[in-house]
């Protein structure tokens, strides 16, 4: 039993270990220098990422509440990778921050929560993981301690997530009433598709919708993104959403398969609304973080197109897209985070003439945005193509036409940023930014990932083989 525990929960235990190391560092009387501390933490996170590839557990724990298999380990590795990239990118911001160990303790707690959530095979375990991943996030969005907007963001975050948790819990309890079990396998066996079950599913869907900020549950997103520190914003938009989507795929495809006809229509409507509204609002944003917030809402719409497919192509395309999304969105956030940490500028207009002074950073941002827009030969093209391709598998062409046209709209605002950086003249552009080597490595990982993941089909084929 103890052996099982150690082996099956190796990813979770490793994160817990790191959290405890940080706790002891904080408790000791020693005054640690931020630079050294950050190097050490990033080293630990690297070890944590590497360790995930060495041992792939397979089995279940706690009476089938907790599962581990190759796909789940892969998903956890993706989240580890994203966390490492974000941590490397926020070096310049955290360098001058007073509470580095606390930041990482909170960050890793949310990661731990996500791991439990992904591994859960039981609604209770799922809910515990979800809450563990949400509440520290609210504290994290308050981490620009002397900024009012940051506190405001934290407050909005905690309110909206409390509300969504309420909905989720309501849905879970009704589902328990309808099926008499919280176990995923058990729920599936008891679902018949009557309206009471559909209603409880809608509540669950609303809870999920809040977490991934799908329309109409997106209203908290822009303000929270804008107020939070950039590192936290990127964590929100990539890791936190990615983890919830990792859960949504099996929950929708397996557990709620008996309700597939009902949820297909819901996902269809939500996906169309999310794409259109995310795009329309992104068109007019002036703040880079808000802009990426709305663009990430639109991206969720595309992901839902893939989710609606109910096929192996659907689930593998969603997971594949999240892999690409980690690289693309974090590449963009990396540049914005660096600029924000060093110059404090976050508005689009500040980026006028950025190419003159910072050609490399401009290309990193441009490549990331092109990938988000779905331009070949970058990975985003493959990701979007496969999502829509999977979504079309059901023969519903109207969804594909809407999605394809939305891709054109989204191209406009991505190109607008490119235009501002490359084409607009500015007498006082952002000065030349000297980055530390850690953010540089993070960007190199992102750009490398964006270029390679699509052209080389290995990643997709691997995911496909796992999903089967």
């Amino acid at each position, binding site marked *: 039993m103890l052996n099982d525990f150690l082996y099956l929960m190796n990813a979770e235990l490793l994160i817990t270990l790191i959290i405890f190391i940080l706790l002891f560092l904080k408790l000791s009387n020693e005054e640690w220098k931020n630079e050294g501390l950050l190097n050490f933490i990033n080293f630990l996170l690297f070890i944590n990422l590497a360790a995930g590839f060495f041992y792939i557990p397979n089995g279940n724990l706690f009476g089938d509440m907790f599962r581990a298999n190759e796909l789940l380990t892969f998903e956890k590795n993706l989240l580890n990778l994203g966390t490492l990239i974000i941590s490397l990118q926020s070096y310049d911001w955290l360098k001058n921050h007073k509470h580095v160990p606390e930041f990482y303790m909170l960050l890793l707690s949310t990661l731990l929560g996500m791991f439990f959530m992904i591994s859960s095979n039981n609604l209770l375990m799922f809910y515990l993981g979800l809450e563990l991943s949400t509440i520290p996030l609210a504290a994290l969005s308050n981490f620009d301690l002397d900024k009012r907007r940051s506190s405001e963001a934290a407050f909005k975050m905690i309110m909206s997530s409390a509300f969504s948790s309420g909905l989720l819990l309501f849905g879970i309890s009704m589902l328990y009433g309808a099926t008499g079990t919280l176990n995923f396998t058990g729920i599936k066996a008891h679902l018949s598709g009557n309206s009471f079950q559909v209603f409880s599913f809608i509540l669950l869907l609303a809870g999920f919708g809040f977490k991934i900020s799908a329309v109409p549950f997106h209203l908290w997103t822009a303000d929270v993104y804008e107020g939070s520190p950039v590192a936290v914003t990127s964590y929100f938009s990539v890791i936190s959403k990615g983890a919830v989507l990792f859960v949504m795929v099996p929950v929708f495809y397996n557990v709620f398969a008996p309700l597939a006809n009902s949820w297909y229509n819901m996902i269809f409507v939500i996906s169309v609304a999310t794409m259109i509204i995310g795009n329309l609002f992104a068109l007019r944003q002036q703040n880079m973080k808000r802009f990426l917030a709305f663009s990430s809402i639109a991206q969720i719409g595309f992901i839902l197109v893939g989710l609606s497919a109910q096929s192996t192509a659907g689930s593998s395309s969603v997971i594949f897209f999240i892999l690409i999304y980690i690289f693309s969105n974090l590449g963009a956030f990396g540049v914005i985070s660096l600029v924000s940490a060093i110059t404090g500028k976050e508005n689009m207009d500040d980026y006028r003439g950025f190419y003159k002074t910072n050609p490399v950073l401009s290309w990193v941002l441009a490549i990331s945005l092109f990938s988000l827009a779905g331009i*070949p030969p970058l990975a985003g093209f493959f990701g979007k193509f496969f999502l829509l391709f999977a979504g*079309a598998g059901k023969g519903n062409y109207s969804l594909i036409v809407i999605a394809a046209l939305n891709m054109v709209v989204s191209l406009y605002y991505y*190109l607008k940023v490119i235009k501002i950086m490359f084409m607009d003249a500015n007498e006082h552009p952002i000065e030349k930014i000297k980055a530390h080597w850690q953010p540089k490595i993070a960007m190199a990982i992102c750009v490398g990932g964006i270029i390679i993941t699509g052209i080389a089909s290995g990643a997709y084929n691997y995911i496909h083989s796992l999903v089967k």
Partner: protein
Amino acid sequence: MNLSLLILLPLLTAVAIIPLKGAKPVRVISLISSSLQLLLAFALLYFYWDERSAGNTATMLFESNYAWYASLHINYHVGVDGISIAMILLTSFVVLAGVLVSWNVEKLSKEFFFLLLFLSVGAYGFFISLDLFTLFFFLEVAVIPKFLLIGIWGSGKKEYSAMKLALMLMAGSALVFVGLIGLYLNTNAGNGQHTFDILQIAQMNIPLSAQKFFFPFAFAGFGIFGALFPFHTWVPDGHSSAPTAASMFLAGISMKLGGYGCLRMATFLMPEAAHQYSWIIIVLASIAILYGAFATMMQTDLKYINAYSSVSHCGFVLLGIGMLTKTAITGAVMQMVSHGLMTALFFAGIGMIYDRTHTRQLSQLGGLLKVMPFISTVFVIAGLCSLGLPGFSGFVAEVTVFMGGWSHEGADNFYRIVTIIACASIVVTAVYILRAVGKAIMGPLASNDHSLLTDAKWNERWAAALLIIGIVAIGIAPFWLNDLVTPATETIVNKISAIVK
């Protein structure tokens, strides 16, 4: 011969120039690479004739096929027929000429050549693709470099034009995407499996209802690239704001992606729908021909003149495709090649004049023949080719389209009237070309400052000579292009006539 070389050569060159410092090594390497591309294209032509004369009658030659995304039936499948080779030759001519013309680009020259090379990767890849996914992939690869080329190095209202071009072309590829997915889902490769493979799809019978639904998506999508009326509005703005080499690429290569795509994907794979919708295509193409010609008459900016006349000339391409006869489609392909070379030459000439006089307004130009005889001659040759003077490629191509249209099997008055209308546009063409050439070249000098201007430099001379050789080679000896293209068009037309009968 390994066709992937055509993609790898420009791609590796583009990557190789990234670490270089200074403008000089960048352009030397680009020049070497584009010359090699030209050699490669001729080598391909040679090997192709070799295979054909050895009796190889396969539809596509030099095929190679690798699984790319196996679970989604996506392959990297390439191969060429006569049409592809004609397009590849055109591309290599225009790329080399474009590199030569851009020799003196000072601003961000590394980025400029990188994007030019990257654009040619997209074009070559597109013309050799035999898999719908690969085709679409390369189609989109060729879009974004144009946005950057126009937006960064362009002139006039460049940001607006760049954005308009990028969005319209992306809208085009979105339509193509829908058509492509729809086509895929209606294929049946046995066991309920689908396929993206063009050659396999060509063997199947796609249900008529699906064809009728998805043909408009594919054709209109590629039509946007090929300036199909009423989706041509990006052409004038895009061409006129672009830097010289980008205009040459845009008109010489990019618009041909549209025509080739219409032929290869829409018409070849959905022949019944093509037959049913052909009258719409013909009507739209005729409108484009006439509208483009008349709109050109009103223009006073040299680049706008050539841009609108491109709308008119590309109308012939779509007209030929719409006629669906062997002669007409052959003519359409020849018109693509001819227009590509001719319009690239035209833009090169305009660029040379603009670099010296800093104006493109007809009213501020005049008497250039006295100060820059070489450039003026280039300009005259491009103009004469454009108005279809025998001996140049434009005449051959347009006459082939007209013959194909007149001798249409339907032989009813519709096709003849359309052909007559299209013929009539040539008169209008003559008017605006002769007016522009006469005003800019002949007469007294428009300004005394112009008397100090110099004639073409070596790079410009080579670029112009290259394109003129191409134009004259087709104009005097059209049979080689005809022989190259005809077997390929025959495959397409046979498929259509087999179904119609």
